[in-house]
């Protein structure tokens, strides 16, 4: 065998071939590789061998090893899942994976618009398609996730208004809330705004009472974390306008084929996540944060992200691309004066969402919204018929997600979920820890992928468990 301890020629390391090493050392004028590390003081050199598992250099063994571990996971292909809250199992058109699996896109990085024209075009198209969907003029190359997009929206609001306080709706995702808090601390002060306990809608009086000249903006989500559709966007907008504060709205873009866009009820900054637009869930590993605004220069220059612009070249009818306001805005172009920072984020997912939106078109987005609406309302209804359950808990319109109130059942959501799991169902997300004020409640999510029989199955099992 040719793998011996002192003779390790690895398929990933061509020049591990000893004869080649020799030739190269000769060119360099060094006796051995160790000599190349001469600047690293001996005291800093690692003397021992790193204690790592034995290498699985055979690809087959590697595959078998990893798959054996992965088989301990139970995917939601195997169970029926009603989990959502910002990440959900939407249908991923096969072409989305075809494109993001293309070696060219998968392994490109930071080339120039001259060699990576396709990457620039695809991301420009992503920006443009998202801009249509959320009905704004400017959208960024996607950042990490919705939480980051919301955090940056707050920081943009601060820089635009030069005020240091952000109001945030209480009914946003608890994960996002934690990210925003860390990201804004200690530069921005954060205060939460209450919701009506009956309807789940924003408590306008509370909002009003908290508006003052420190307030840079108010961030809320629509639909809210609880799937409730906020219908007073325009009222909120005029409250904010009167206070010269910005309206920042987070939203799930898969709702926007059918739901009014935040920009059309007054949002100054719209943000959210593209996970629902053609990305698998990947245990929460496939997310991308979008930020959209008008083309107001005061806004554009506050984006930290890359913004790809279209242009012409010196050849007739040829498109070119490049970075807009790169030197002024970005930390790449302006280390000390750049806005926040820019770096590797979620480009491949942005391209994927561009494919998704191109395939769906306006009709597809309308239809998928309608299907989700119908299926989720069917679930709301059917669960609502079960004795002692209140569904939806909040008396308002819902999209995709809704809260079911289990307080009257005398049972804990956690134990109900355990029982459901035995029936190969992941029930709704238990809200009792993050929102203790709701007692025993759970957040259910329905997408276009659920079938009627999935929902009936849930309802049947809930009935059995609660009877």
């Amino acid at each position, binding site marked *: 065998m040719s793998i011996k301890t002192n003779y390790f020629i690895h398929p990933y390391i061509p020049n591990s071939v000893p004869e080649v090493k020799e030739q190269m050392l000769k060119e360099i004028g060094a006796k051995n590789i160790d000599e190349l*590390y001469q*600047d690293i003081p001996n005291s800093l050199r690692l003397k021992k061998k790193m204690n790592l598992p034995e290498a699985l250099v055979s690809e087959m063994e590697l595959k078998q090893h990893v798959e054996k*571990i992965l088989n*301990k996971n139970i995917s939601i292909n195997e169970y029926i899942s009603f989990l959502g809250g910002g990440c959900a199992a939407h249908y991923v058109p096969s072409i989305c994976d075809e494109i993001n699996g293309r070696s060219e896109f998968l392994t490109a*990085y930071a080339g120039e618009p001259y060699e990576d024209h396709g990457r620039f075009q695809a991301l420009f198209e992503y920006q443009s398609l998202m801009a249509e969907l959320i009905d704004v003029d400017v959208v960024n190359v996607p950042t990490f996730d919705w939480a980051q997009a919301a955090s940056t929206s707050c920081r943009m609001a601060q820089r635009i208004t030069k005020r240091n306080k952000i109001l945030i709706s209480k009914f946003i995702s608890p994960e996002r809330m934690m990210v925003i808090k860390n*990201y804004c*601390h200690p530069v921005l002060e954060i205060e939460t705004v209450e919701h009506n306990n009956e309807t789940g809608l924003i408590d306008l009086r509370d909002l009003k009472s908290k508006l003052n000249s420190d307030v840079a903006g108010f961030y809320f989500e629509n639909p809210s974390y609880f799937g409730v559709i906020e219908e007073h966007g325009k009222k909120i907008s005029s409250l904010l306008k009167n206070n010269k504060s910005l309206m920042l709205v987070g939203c799930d873009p898969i709702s926007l084929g059918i739901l009014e866009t935040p920009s059309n009820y007054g949002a100054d900054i719209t943000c959210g996540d593209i996970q629902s637009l053609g990305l698998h869930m990947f245990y929460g590993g496939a997310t991308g944060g979008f930020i959209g605004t008008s083309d107001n220069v005061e806004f554009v220059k506050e984006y930290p992200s890359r913004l790809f612009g279209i242009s012409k070249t*010196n050849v007739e009818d040829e498109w070119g691309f490049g970075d807009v306001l790169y030197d002024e805005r970005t930390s790449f172009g302006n280390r000390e004066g750049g806005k926040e920072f820019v770096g590797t984020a979620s480009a491949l997912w942005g391209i994927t969402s561009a494919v998704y939106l191109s395939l769906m078109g306006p009709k597809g987005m309308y239809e998928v919204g*309608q299907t989700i609406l119908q299926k989720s309302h069917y679930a709301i209804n059917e669960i609502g018929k079960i004795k002692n359950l209140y569904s939806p808990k909040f008396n308002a319109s819902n999209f995709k997600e809704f809260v079911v109130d289990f307080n009257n059942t005398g049972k804990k959501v956690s134990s109900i979920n355990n029982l459901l799991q035995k029936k190969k169902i992941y029930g709704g997300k238990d809200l009792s820890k993050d929102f203790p004020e709701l007692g025993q409640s759970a957040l259910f999510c329905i997408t276009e992928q659920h079938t009627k029989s999935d929902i009936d199955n849930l309802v049947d099992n809930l009935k059995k468990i609660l009877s």
Partner: protein
Amino acid sequence: MNNIKSKLRKFHQAKWDEQIIFELNTPNERGIYPPKAEKEITKIVGNGISKLPRNMIRKKKPELPEVSQMRVLKHFLRLSQHTLGADFNIDIGQGTCTIKYNPKINELISRNPKVTELHPYQDENSVQGALEIIFKLDLFLREISGLDHFTFQPPSGSAAILTMASIVQKYFEVKGEEQIRDEVITTIFSHPSDYSAAAVKGYKVKMVYNNPQTGLPDMESFKKLISNKTAAIFITNPEDTGIFNPEIKLITDLAHKNGAICCYDQANANGILGITRAKEAGFDMCFFNLHKTFSTPHGCGGPATGALGVVKKLYNYLPIPNIEYNGKKYILNNKIKHTIGKVRAYPTVFPVVLKAYAWIMSLGSEGLKEVANIAVLNNNYLLSKITKIKGASAPYAKGKRRIEQVRYSWEKLHLDTGVTTEDVTLRMADFGFHLWSSHHPFIVKQPFTIEPTEAYSKDELDEYINALSYISKEAYSNPDIVKLAPHNSVVHKIDHSWFDDPTKWSITWRLYKKKHLKK
């Protein structure tokens, strides 16, 4: 030298002259149909729209293009061919980016439904495989860095820097020193995010410039800047110059003496795996970009992960949840005393973690060290060859070895011929190559940065060098051909006036139509 394996290619990039997707719109064409609700459901709940508040029904349909399926596919396939991925070229010209082989087996593994179809809210028991992989990668990186705990929450290197700054801040808040310690020190050849991500947390960031001789951060400046106001230092080593700073331990000692936290930017640790570690260099935290050193694909700029390691005393500040093993099973620990909270909504970018895990497993301890050895060998081979090219030089530390990359300069070429780094960059595109200048500011004049990693053969390195020498010769004999490049790429000289002028810039197709078509 011009053997068949390192020949200068007669290259031309694929050029489809492809339209913008909006230009392909044909009203009523369909790309795909989403499923409809079952008839029984429609019977019960109606069309769904009636459930919406009137004013919340979208009035104007989004102006997305309507394009049939094959045409959408064709469009993006063509764009893919317009993109020079690392799988296609000898991608050593994107210095600092650690472009290496991203094994296809790892892609395959990560497209398993046991990976793609997991929800982040799933019960711990149903994701034991995922948690095991995350935790074991933690164990591996502890061994590689010498530090005590890793978190994989930061979704990039910059986010890891932000996280380090957050931990530093929290640490001093708990100590009650947050008001005093409001400064951070970094160096000019560190990554820009070491400056800017720290600044996001409100820190005043001080910058140490390099010593013009050694290229290393100037020790005297360091000593001057460091004080009891210093919360932390953020430093890369080797910096973008590829020179290992032998004084690194002096710096961390100095920082510690002043009560500061030492944060190591090891986004790119490719040259030192198994050679030297954060621990021995005296760092309290470090991070690795899994999408660099650990081989996960760059994806045009993400998804990514900045794996962040800390020493024991900083465990209590880690973001939640932390993935741990309780002796029986893997858990998501949310009970961390002084946690900074979260820096990303979900626990980690799982496919990235998985690929990094698989990559390490295929190499083992020896393999990782071989990665470093060969990355350094390749780099010094290039150094030897490139400094022989007319017009090129490697500023600083003359005669010394470099670690994994080098920041070179075309200053002489420029003075002699007028040809700039940018010109050479565009001409390199004609041979199917990237060539990157450097991060601003251009301390090194007419800079270019090359990092070969372990992934390319000697023949491929020779091919790249051949192209550089050829272009240098062109610059001296026929500079116009260089200045007018690219000639064989998908696109030609771009009009830059559209990027900084608000009346022209078009960040979206609709802005293009408004600003340029209406006229």
